[in-house]
């Protein structure tokens, strides 16, 4: 079995995997799969090691789509087939993340209640629209527009946590990003940031 760390363009030579093993690059068309030993059993150390290995690879590659912990293929043929079947999708995703990295933003607060107009269906749809569009962040979006290249919103329905927002930024722009967020005046929400990270949230699922 082969473990998968990432699908990249411009794979680094001599990178090390999560357990210090030299990685192996398996090429299919324009895709380079960075592979290593089969994934170990789940543990905090294994998760951190996987993240660290992906980070080392992402730092050196031109474009990197991280593979989640546990992603693996039975053998090289299976992996080549899986890559071939999704080549166009993966190449498009690689173009989006080329030279970029990701910031995580957790949005805390109470979600604004949708206007009570219309029937239950309309209210439901309006609630859904607000949850994925997150208009609470609009004042911030204008000041981030020079830095943010793409956004993904993951709405949460739990008290206190409205959403996780993942922003794709140019590599090296995290200080500008943090400054813009810190200077934004937002009403009713509190933000916490982490990053930069490899662009995990902009990678299509790579697990078979």
């Amino acid at each position, binding site marked *: 079995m082969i473990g998968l760390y990432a699908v990249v363009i411009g794979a680094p030579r001599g990178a090390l995997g999560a357990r210090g093993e030299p990685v192996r690059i398996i090429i299919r068309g324009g895709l380079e799969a960075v592979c290593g030993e089969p994934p170990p059993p*789940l543990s905090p150390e294994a*998760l951190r090691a996987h*993240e660290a290995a992906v980070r080392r690879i992402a730092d050196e590659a031109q474009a990197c789509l991280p593979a*989640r*912990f546990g992603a693996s293929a039975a053998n090289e043929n299976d992996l080549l087939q899986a890559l071939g079947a999704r080549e166009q999708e993966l190449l498009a995703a690689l173009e989006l993340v080329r030279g970029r990295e990701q910031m995580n933003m957790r949005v805390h607060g109470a979600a604004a209640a949708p206007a009570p107009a219309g029937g239950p269906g309309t209210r439901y749809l309006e609630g859904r629209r607000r949850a994925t569009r997150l208009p609470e962040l609009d004042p911030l979006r204008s000041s981030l527009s020079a830095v943010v290249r793409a956004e993904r919103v993951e709405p949460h329905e739990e008290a206190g*946590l409205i959403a996780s927002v993942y922003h794709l930024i140019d590599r090296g722009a995290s200080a500008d990003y943090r400054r813009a967020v810190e200077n934004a005046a937002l009403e009713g929400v509190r933000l916490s940031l982490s990053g930069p990270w490899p662009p*995990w949230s902009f990678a299509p699922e790579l*697990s078979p």
Partner: protein
Amino acid sequence: MRKPPRTPAQEIIAHADSSLLEIIDLVLNKGVTLQGEVILGVAGVDLIYLRLNALLCAADKVLPPGGRK
């Protein structure tokens, strides 16, 4: 009443610090089939949304059936 023993995944989450929670969110989120969803608060750390079953499933996925040593 005795509590049922916690699974390895629950143990990991229960003891995770904020950096590990961020890693779990990125490294496992939507990793595989999703079912249960949980919110976790760790003392002094922001709430982070986790999908517990993603963690469990990813653990199961690491080794194929019959492939466990």
